[in-house]
């Protein structure tokens, strides 16, 4: 469990983190969202013990990061922003070094290294200096380093930034496959990632938590939640009739009247009514489906309110 209580961080005059508190339970995968400069990385740096808080406290698995730093850090795997590592080493040496620091020796050490090399697909670059690796491979080395000791708490700052689609998929699978008693905190600007892997989405803006709920709840805050979209084969003046249906708040018309999105009032389901109307009026329809909430729109709404 991670417990954060009244955490603040100032850089000179600037307040990067402004009195935030939250708890993360074992089994949760927390997506940390927020605009650039919101304070995501700063929070992660404090959880991992790199930066000291200006005030407030953080405990990781019951260990206070300020006073029992080493004990807490043993339980954390951390991928810092930009995945810095010792670039003059090759991945094999580097991972061996990390494994040694994490207390693995001899055969066990080699086995741990071999294991993460396979997980992150690093076989082809093992003896190449890290400074000559491509951005995505560097990130994979950084991820490998973070999971080598099978940590209870995994903190990943933009883990999929710069990865190819296959690797993104791989990393998401990796996160999902972690056993259910672990804590994962990932920061990301890719909103689909939150729906794909997270059990909880926490949005931070200007150093404050502005939203904290499940990704599904976040989606339901979208004005597109439960909206119904129809693709008409031919242009029709369907918009007026649709907007007269009960529970409809608005109809958006696109592509010269062929693409209509029917928005609902207060998130009630209107698929049935729209479907009935289509049959009643015998409109030719190519597709008719219920929209999912649009996270980017919710994200914008929530974070722009703050500014």
């Amino acid at each position: 469990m991670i417990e954060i209580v009244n955490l603040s961080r100032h850089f000179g005059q600037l307040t990067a983190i402004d009195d935030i508190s939250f708890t993360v339970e074992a089994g949760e995968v927390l997506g940390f969202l927020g605009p650039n400069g919101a304070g995501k990385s700063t929070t992660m740096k404090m959880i991992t013990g790199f930066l000291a808080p200006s005030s407030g406290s953080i405990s990781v698995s019951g260990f206070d990061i300020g006073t029992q730093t080493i004990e807490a850090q043993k339980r954390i795997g951390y991928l810092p922003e930009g995945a810095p590592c010792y670039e003059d080493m090759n991945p094999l040496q580097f991972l061996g070094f990390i494994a040694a620091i994490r207390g693995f020796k001899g055969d066990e050490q080699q086995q741990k290294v071999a294991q993460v090399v396979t997980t992150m697909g690093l076989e082809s670059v093992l003896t190449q200096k890290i400074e000559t690796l491509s951005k995505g491979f560097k990130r994979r080395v950084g991820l490998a380093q973070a999971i080598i000791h099978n940590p209870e708490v995994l903190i990943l700052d933009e883990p999929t930034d710069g990865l190819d689609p296959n690797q993104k998929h791989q990393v998401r699978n990796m996160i999902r496959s972690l056993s259910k008693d672990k804590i994962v905190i990932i920061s990301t600007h890719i909103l689909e990632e939150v729906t794909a892997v997270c059990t909880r989405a926490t949005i931070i803006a200007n150093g404050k938590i502005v939203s904290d709920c499940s990704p599904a709840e976040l989606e339901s805050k979208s004005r597109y939640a439960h909206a119904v979209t129809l693709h008409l084969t031919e242009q029709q003046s369907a918009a007026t009739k649709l907007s007269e249906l009960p529970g409809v708040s608005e109809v958006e018309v696109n592509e010269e009247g062929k693409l209509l999105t029917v928005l609902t009032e207060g998130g009630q389901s209107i698929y049935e009514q729209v479907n009935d109307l289509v049959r009643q009026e015998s409109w030719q329809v190519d597709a008719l489906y219920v929209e999912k909430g649009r996270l980017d729109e919710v994200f914008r709404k929530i974070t722009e309110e703050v500014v």
Partner: protein
Amino acid sequence: MEMVVIFKREFASYFSTPLASVFIVIFLVLAGVFTFYLGNFYERGQADLMPFFNFHPWLYLFLVPAISMRLWSEERKSGSIELLMTLPITKLDAVVGKFTAAWCFIGLALLLTIPMWISVNYLGDPDNGVIFASYLGSWLMAGSFLAIGSCMSALTKSQVIAFILSVVICFLFILSGFPLVLNVFKDWAPSVVVDAIASLSFLTHFSSISKGVLGFRDLLYFLSLIGCWLFATAIVIELQQAD
């Protein structure tokens, strides 16, 4: 234990770049130039290594900061310090591990001058005890330069600034034992003050060691100097977390 792991990584890192060979070559060439041209090694007609060791403070003044400047500045610049400081190791493990790696590296360069020792034995009949003590003293002095440099390197991201700061501070530590400087004080300051200033100097302690008397006071001087500056390094790093 973690300290040893850090030591190994750091020590190996000197050899993964051209740094090691460049440094060692420059060290040996300069040591040779100082000894044979400026030190009148042959003309003195004495079988000892005095001219060689006499120049060591000046040799270290520029070469040791060139090694120490990267100790922490580079980590801060590349961001790898964030990785290092979030691994389960203490600040002291990191500081001492890095320092000893650099110190051993300089020790290695020093060892490579042993042919000079062999040749004085071939040319004459030197006091090998004195030479051994001088080697040890020289290495201890290098360690003190290095500890100062380590602290300066922790202060800044810029290796250039770290280099300049180290040179300046090391220079002050050499200078405080120079007769020229001491004479300025001798005229008016009480002799306790003059002695105190002189006793802070690398030169005072190094020259007494290189006369062959490996006194407890000189050992203590260098070791406590190293200890203090390494402690300061750890504090600087600690403070940066809260900065």
